[in-house]
């Protein structure tokens, strides 16, 4: 117990770690808020600088960036009606009308406090449930990990994209990119074309920064001339009466956020939309109608998306399965630091787990401080012209990619992935599943082969094992249900059912 407390408080007592968490949160808020800079982009670029740092320093900075970034999107959603991140879409629906009424300060204050409450609920859930899930996950076998990987990629692909086929393609492409290099089991070359530099595989940080940094910057070239509307901001600290009044809703929304965040493949964006929906259905007499600046509709998504941060750490740390695109990037960073996220992380390095919990809590407090201050400077920074921002993103992306192994070839990979990512985005593909595929592909490959070897290479035994073990069976049913719900078969069935009901 004493050890847990000392690890929890380490980040609070060491001035350097305290500084890093604070600076990470501040950077996260601003980067998350600037339209065109996403949390994923910020995390992938900023994390690349931490690879040579001691692991605690890196973890403290990452916790701050993630926490701040998820919150930051709400500010631009309120002030400019441009959600800084997808998780702030619901916030824009209610926050911007409030700002137009002259209540921008109140909206910002309320979202800050509710985000912090949501953040703590998520962290509490992480501290309580991760050890339990971890001890449960030790019973998972290779088939279960294969299924979890597939579910994660498919969930990201199907929930956020234009079509299931596009999501599946992006996920499979990521898996294929993750396969490049020498096979870890047999040392056979895969897609190396006899080239020595390909044998180490494609650097996934280059892929991350390419897909999230460069590609996004190129897409932003289309919105170079979007004019910015300024809002008046006055009182920021919210009224105690308001906080008390919406606390119940915030806690319920945080519960939703934590659970959604903890599901592999779903993150803050879906959590926020579901919580918004919950607020809509559970509020019978809102002061102001939904869509016109209703505070309930502002509180619920903001509490939920920050609760999802703690939630997203749960599958990442206990199963080694990233909850969403940001955690996919973070998991890449953990691997580079020599950590092995998965059920053994809590057994072998419990001090790191409690350190992360402590860092997230501190980041949440920093969020409260920075969230309620510095709005004036903030409005100036957010108005940074795209013509200046885009070239700077490119320079930072190049520095970030080069920083990892000091290899100029990696920046060419970054550019290539940036261009591919641009076209994918333009034609309605999501790039999140690609990165999830890159990270999860090698894990799925080795688990598939282990499962197949366990079945002595017999296809019948291999598939029988999927239905004869309880945990595997549950996961298999979940995967099949997900696949079926996306096929034309399901659409026909629904059409048939509604037609029958009408009759």
């Amino acid at each position: 117990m004493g050890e847990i407390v000392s690890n929890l408080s380490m980040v609070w007592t060491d001035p350097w770690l305290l500084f890093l968490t604070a600076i990470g949160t501040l950077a996260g808020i601003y980067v998350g808020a600037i339209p065109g800079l996403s949390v994923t982009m910020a995390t992938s670029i900023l994390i690349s600088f931490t690879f040579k740092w001691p692991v605690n320093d890196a973890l403290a900075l990452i916790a701050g960036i993630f926490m701040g970034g998820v919150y930051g999107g709400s500010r631009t959603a309120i002030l400019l009606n441009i959600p800084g991140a997808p998780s702030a879409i619901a916030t824009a629906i209610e926050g911007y009308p409030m700002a137009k009424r002259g209540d921008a300060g109140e909206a910002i204050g309320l979202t800050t406090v509710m985000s912090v409450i949501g953040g703590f609920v998520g962290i509490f859930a992480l501290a309580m449930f991760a050890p339990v899930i971890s001890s449960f996950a030790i019973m998972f076998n290779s088939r279960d990990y294969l299924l979890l990987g597939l579910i994660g990629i498919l969930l990201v692909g199907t929930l956020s994209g234009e079509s299931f086929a596009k999501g599946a393609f992006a996920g499979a492409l990521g898996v294929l990119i993750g396969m490049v290099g020498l096979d870890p089991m047999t040392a056979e070359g895969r897609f190396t074309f006899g080239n020595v530099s390909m044998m180490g595989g494609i650097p996934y940080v280059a892929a991350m920064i390419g897909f999230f940094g460069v590609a996004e910057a190129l897409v932003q070239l289309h919105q170079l001339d979007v004019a910015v509307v300024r809002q008046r901001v006055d009182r920021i600290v919210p009224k105690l009466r308001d906080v008390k009044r919406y606390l119940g809703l915030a806690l319920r929304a945080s519960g939703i956020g934590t659970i959604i965040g903890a599901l592999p493949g779903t993150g803050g964006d879906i959590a926020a939309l579901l919580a918004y929906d919950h607020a809509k259905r559970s509020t019978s007499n809102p002061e102001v109608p939904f869509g016109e600046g209703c505070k309930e509709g502002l509180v619920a998504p903001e509490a939920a998306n920050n609760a999802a941060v703690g939630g997203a750490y749960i599958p990442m740390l206990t199963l080694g399965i990233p909850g969403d695109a940001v955690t996919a990037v973070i998991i890449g960073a953990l691997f580079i630091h020599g950590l092995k996220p998965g059920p053994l992380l809590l057994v072998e390095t419990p001090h790191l787990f409690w350190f992360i919990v402590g860092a997230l809590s501190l980041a949440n407090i920093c969020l409260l401080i920075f969230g309620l201050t510095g709005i004036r400077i903030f409005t100036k920074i957010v108005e940074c012209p795209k013509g200046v921002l885009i070239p700077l993103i490119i320079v930072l992306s190049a520095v970030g990619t080069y920083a990892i192994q000091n290899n100029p070839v990696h920046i060419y990979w970054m550019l290539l992935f940036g261009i591919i990512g641009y076209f994918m985005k333009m034609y309605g593909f999501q790039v999140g599943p690609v990165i999830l595929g890159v990270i999860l592909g090698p894990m799925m490959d080795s688990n598939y082969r282990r499962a197949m070897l366990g079945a002595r290479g017999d296809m019948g035994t291999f598939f029988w094992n999927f239905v004869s073990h309880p945990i595997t069976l549950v996961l298999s049913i979940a995967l099949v249900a997900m696949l079926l719900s996306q096929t034309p078969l399901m659409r026909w069935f629904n059409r048939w059912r509604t037609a029958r009901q009408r009759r």
Partner: protein
Amino acid sequence: MSGNSPKRQGERGFSLLLVVFSVTAFWQSYAISGFTGLSTAGVFPMLASATMIAAAVCILVESLLESHDAHADVTVDQKSMQSVLPMRLVIMVLLITGYLVAMPAIGFLLSSAAFLLASFSYLWRKPFLVSLLITVVSVASVYIIFRKLFQVVLPNGSLIQGLF
């Protein structure tokens, strides 16, 4: 950022390209270890590329059906072609390529300054001196924050080694 516009010029071409790429990827996956066993190095890449082929064919069919339904309007399509590949994008990609190729040769500082100055002048269109000032401030901040504070190694430049 993808937007919801279902028809973009070049979508069918892009979908076809995806099918070709997926088939090539499958062929390359097959070349790893063929069909010699179910747990060989090539099986998972084959599964992934087979998924890509199936998905790419679905995407191609979707895009063909969409344009068929819409009786594609030429002028609208021309507009959306510009929106997928505007001149601004082509010029920026060329600038970025030039920047990244020059970086190992002339070093991070010089190449970044040149790239930033060129792209600020092109995208921002403010007086030259303003662009120059922002360039100097940006490069200096990046250098101080990343090289000095974070101790990140930046490309030195093989041509003028030691100078920058």
